[in-house]
């Protein structure tokens, strides 16, 4: 028996067709009970319960497909933070994770994380690998050695964080190891990938430092990680009667509209977006923005309508038309099932500093 409790709204609290600054709320809480189910089935269940898209990584399709059949998952959670449930699932599934960029979700691949560190109720960190590059400097003068350590991490975010991107590495502020840290900084990078309106359930970062001698254990590491979160959104939505009779909502920045519903809804329901804000998102991957929090389609029970996708049918200047369809190819009368279509685009964002603390971590 699976039940779901959403303790907060998945999306930020902003009024329809308005923009306002909000603080992160959360966490989203999940209850789940999986008993020895195949990985593929577990992924579907977790995805349905959390609203986060999952897929096996395509970087190693053969091992991924085999893992989906072979690995079995047992997982129990009672009203736990979403990020922690997802992290526990990955540990159980012996899988690592990377952003599933097309849908803002999670791409998983075989390879158990080395450790799991809940940073707070909204973010859980997985240490996924450690790479040690050793270098002997044999140039002029006495030979010297340098070891550069890269600890690769993935962080699972609660949707309320509205995470748009993050720096590729975190800034280490404290490091307790048996040998001195190298004077030669092996520092942090603040680069982030493209910010295009998609929100991410997982982002990667690395912790990097250098030493003059090899280290086998980290007693304690403290770091600060820059994560970019939306601080202001524009949200537009249409509900119930407007979806049947046709209607529109919004302002000059962003307007959503639907034509009157026809008799035949087998080809799905259409809605369109227009407005000056779309100019800033003209390079966004609209074909895969579904599932990222930017477009949400609710059923009459108030929750996300299952088994539907919204794909762009045409982009003409500042107008984009989407078709909502049954992604299982069924013949559903979606006009009757859909109670609300909502589009949220971030208009302002700001970096937050996320503290990371690792203790007693073995080095290869």
């Amino acid at each position, binding site marked *: 028996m699976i039940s779901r409790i959403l303790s907060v709204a998945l999306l930020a609290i902003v009024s329809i067709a308005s923009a306002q600054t909000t603080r992160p709320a959360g966490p989203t809480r999940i209850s789940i009970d999986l008993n020895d189910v195949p990985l593929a089935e577990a992924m579907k269940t977790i995805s349905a319960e959390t609203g986060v898209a999952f897929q096996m990584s395509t970087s190693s399709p053969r091992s991924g497909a085999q893992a989906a059949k072979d690995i079995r998952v047992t997982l129990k959670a009672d009203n736990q933070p979403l990020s922690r449930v997802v992290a526990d699932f990955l540990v159980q599934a012996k899988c690592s994770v990377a952003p599933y960029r097309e849908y803002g979700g999670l791409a998983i691949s075989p390879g158990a994380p080395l450790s799991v560190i809940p940073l707070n109720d909204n973010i859980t960190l997985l240490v996924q690998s450690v790479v040690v*590059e050793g270098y002997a400097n044999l140039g002029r003068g006495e030979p010297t050695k340098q070891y550069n350590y890269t600890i690769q991490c993935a962080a699972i975010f609660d949707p309320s964080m509205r995470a748009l991107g993050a720096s590729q590495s975190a800034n280490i502020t404290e490091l307790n190891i048996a040998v001195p840290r190298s004077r030669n900084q092996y520092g942090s990078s603040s680069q982030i990938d493209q910010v295009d309106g998609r929100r991410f359930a997982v982002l990667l970062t690395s912790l990097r430092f250098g030493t003059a001698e090899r280290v086998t254990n980290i007693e304690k590491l403290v770091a600060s990680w820059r994560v970019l979160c939306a601080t202001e959104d524009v949200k537009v939505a249409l509900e119930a009667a407007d979806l049947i009779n046709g209607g529109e909502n919004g302002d000059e920045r962003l307007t959503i509209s639907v034509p009157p519903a026809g008799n035949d809804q087998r080809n799905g329901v259409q809605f369109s977006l227009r407005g000056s804000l779309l100019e800033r998102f003209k390079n966004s991957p609209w074909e895969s923005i579904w599932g990222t929090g930017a477009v949400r389609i609710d059923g009459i029970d108030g929750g996300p309508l299952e088994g539907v996708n919204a794909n762009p049918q045409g982009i003409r200047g500042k107008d984009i038309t989407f078709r909502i369809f049954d992604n299982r190819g069924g013949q559903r009368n979606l006009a009757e099932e859909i109670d609300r279509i909502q589009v949220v685009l971030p208009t302002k964002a700001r970096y937050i500093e996320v503290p990371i603390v690792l203790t007693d971590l073995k080095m290869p």
Partner: protein
Amino acid sequence: MKLRMIVLCMFSLLPALALAEVKTEIVPAAQLERQGEAAQLAKPVKLSLTDTSPTDAVAAFVKETGIALTFDNAERQASGPVITYDVAIDAATLDDALDQLGQALRLGIYRQSEKAFRISPNYDVGFNERRNNFGQDMEGGTKARITGIRTMRIAGQTTNSPGQEFTVSIVVAARDVMLTGQPEVKLIEAIDEQGRKLEQAKPSSTMFFGGSNLQRLRSTLSVSLQLSRPEPDPAQIKSLKGEVVLKNVKSFSKTTVTELDKQVEITLDGVKLTVGPLAKSGDAWRLPVKTPPGKPEARGNMYQRLNFLFNESAQATGEAGERLRINSGGSSSSPEGDEMFLQFFSDGSNRPASTQPATQPATRPARPDGIKPVKVTWSVPNEVEVISIPFEAANLIVP
């Protein structure tokens, strides 16, 4: 011991075509010109902005300093939510100011030319002078020296290679070598402290020049040697011997085409090419260059590196005698041959409109498009020598 062998590229000794608008001559490699290093500007800069976007901050900086500072991907800055920053700059020199700007925006900046800079999240944060090792100590003639050994160890899931080799870094000093092709590192013998023989694991790779086909070596050249790593790890390489093999261009065949309004045939690197006629397309002048029909392998090196037509080996001159930059204006391939269009821009603003700076100082003149080239010159290797540079070392520590 140094082994030198002269290889003459007979195909490039073909006589100049008997056309008035095509002239071919043989010139020593040392005569090829290079652009000088950019001079450093010194100017105090003060700027204070709060809750500002990177685009606005860069525009204010450009207005204050008069330099050209260009986003590598300006479109990206104009998309998505506006990320805001507080920027405070108080610097005695432009270099310091650029560094402070880069740090404030968490972006990297590098110098494109004396007064033109580029900014992007893809560089190290702050102001990075374009790193090169020109000017390093080149005394002592041609030699190779082992400078380091690199290893990699991995725990957990990663896309990196398993790290079953270690890499020996070698620096080659060879003054005034005009390098063509890929340097090669050959292992003669490697023995570890346990008496085990280490094998060459992979073909050698060049770390400095990458895919460049032709480069004046005024500095050291970094190459590497991959060795297999036996279990357990060796602590030392007791003895290591090998050689680095370079190809040095002694002279070039320089082909100059004038009267570009006509279609002419030239031979570059053994391949006949049809050049011209020059035509105007929009704001830019375009010059078509066609390879002959036939299978790609029959078209010689030109097919492999059509970029050669507009890289450092190509020079164009405008009507007023000014030097023009040449860019690719597109290419196509078919059984009838390959065709590449060359586009001409004034030196310093050579990029097409799509990559023009988003922000420019108000005093900067408009981009002088439409400058007509009157002469194009290509220089291709003529006489090539093979240089073998030995290296040898003992008791090397393995990290």
